[in-house]
């Protein structure tokens, strides 16, 4: 039955594959190859010995010689089949090992993004991003399982039914080299005579504990299989009236408790966002040319206060037309572009402002002013 991996998130899924050591896997493959070579070399030597023996002890002259050479031939045939079987097992195990290695390689960048998302200031953005990555990891696991299942079917290699010789006779106290004429009896059950093979314990599996279901099925809908888009958050980019949590765009429009008030970026040390990588709203990394993805539709002259693009900026305040500050979206885009330059997040643009600036009214000095009506 196929596993959907709904019970695990990316960190636990990563644990599943990170525990597999590629060096160990290749050591297994190399040892299977070593076994194949050892069998082939020994078989070839045994063939040469057999040919010389057949010349000195022809089987057409002796029933004992025929029986003896038949045993030798059986061993040569079994060695050939076992060497082929070892090669076949090795081939199919190498496929499985490659699939696991590929799965690990696919998950590694997702884990990096997952860790980067942990520094997002908005918990909803963080959680939604991580849930999207969880789902991507699950889909990767399911695809990987399909390939493993195919390789496993081919792993059922047929090996020769070659038994350990267990014939025994009751030896009497006769002269040297004399075997008593008692009828041979067979003891044991053939294959599996190696008592030390019990050291090769059967595999045991210790997967990470599943995550609490309530943690996975929280109140956010998952944008399954698609990159995260802020507009996919319930409530859009505006405040969620039910929860009272401000929307993504609202966060940028509120500063120091003053809606639409002047936003002046504090000193650089204070402006550092919680991100471990250091990108801050309006503060590009030192010496870096900050991409402006998603910043279209704005008027640079209005956004910037004499600072060049990429430098410290003072945000425009509530001019006519509303606050068009998209610094948060830019921050999200920058954070994403730093972790993965190939995938830019789509950021909505040109949204209707939430707060209209009040129109200027004619100045009215009020009543009771001397001489005003003259």
């Amino acid at each position, binding site marked *: 039955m196929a596993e959907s991996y709904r019970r*695990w998130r990316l960190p636990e899924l990563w644990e599943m594959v990170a*525990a597999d050591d590629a060096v160990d896997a290749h050591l297994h493959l190399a040892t299977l190859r070593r076994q194949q070579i050892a*069998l082939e070399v020994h078989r070839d030597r045994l063939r040469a010995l057999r040919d010389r023996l057949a010349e000195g002890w022809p089987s057409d002259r002796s029933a004992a010689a025929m029986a003896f050479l038949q045993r030798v031939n059986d061993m040569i045939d079994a060695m050939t089949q076992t060497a082929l079987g070892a090669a076949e097992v090795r081939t199919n195990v190498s496929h499985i090992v490659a699939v*696991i290695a590929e799965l690990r390689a696919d998950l590694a960048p997702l884990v990096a993004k997952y860790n980067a998302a942990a520094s997002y200031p908005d918990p909803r953005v963080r959680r939604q991003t991580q849930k999207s990555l969880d789902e991507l990891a699950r889909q990767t696991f399911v695809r990987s399982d399909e390939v493993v*299942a195919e390789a496993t079917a081919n792993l059922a290699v047929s090996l020769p039914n070659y038994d350990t010789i267990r014939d025994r006779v009751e030896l009497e106290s006769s002269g040297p080299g004399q075997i008593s004429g008692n009828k041979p009896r067979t003891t044991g059950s053939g*294959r599996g005579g190696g008592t030390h093979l019990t050291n090769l314990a059967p595999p045991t599996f210790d997967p990470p504990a599943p995550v609490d279901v309530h943690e996975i099925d929280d109140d956010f809908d998952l944008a399954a299989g698609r990159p995260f888009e802020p507009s996919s958050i319930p409530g859009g980019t505006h405040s969620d009236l039910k929860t009272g949590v401000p929307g993504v765009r609202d966060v940028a429009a509120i500063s120091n408790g003053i809606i639409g008030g002047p936003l002046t970026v504090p000193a650089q040390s204070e402006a550092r966002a919680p991100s471990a990588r250091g990108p801050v709203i309006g503060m590009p990394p030192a010496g870096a040319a900050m991409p402006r993805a998603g910043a279209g539709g704005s008027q640079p002259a209005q956004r910037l206060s004499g600072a060049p693009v990429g430098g410290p900026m003072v945000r425009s305040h509530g001019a006519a037309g509303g606050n068009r500050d998209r610094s948060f979206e830019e921050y999200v885009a920058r954070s994403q572009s730093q972790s993965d330059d190939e995938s830019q997040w789509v950021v909505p643009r040109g949204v209707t402002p939430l707060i209209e600036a009040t129109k200027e009214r004619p100045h009215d000095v009020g009543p009771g002013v001397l001489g005003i009506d003259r």
Partner: protein
Amino acid sequence: MSDHQSGFTVDLEAVRSFGAGLHADLTAHLSPEHDQILRTFVDTPSFGTRTASPDVQAAATLYHRKLIELLDLMDAFVHNGAVLVQAAEEVVAAYAHADQLSGDQFKTSLAVASTKVDDAIWAAQHDPKTGRSA
């Protein structure tokens, strides 16, 4: 009866050489290789130890079973090779013993025949009732 030609032809040195050569290959090559291979598989964990995937778990379990089969076969080759070495020694000893037995049997037959002849001569020279000489 055997369909083989009467009499046996055996070069005991060829049989002895087979046993010695096989013994040398086993002790210097196959047996230590088998030990090393077994030790590596025992000491090296396989894949999927922490996986929750039923497919990977099935693959790891089947792989373990195939490893056991392969190692059992290697063990059987080493064991049966040793049996063939011992059998070659027994064959050499048996042929040598058979040749020795032929000489002994001839002596026995000669002794039996001599005894019978002596008995017949004695009977002809003596009265069967009284045992006195005729």
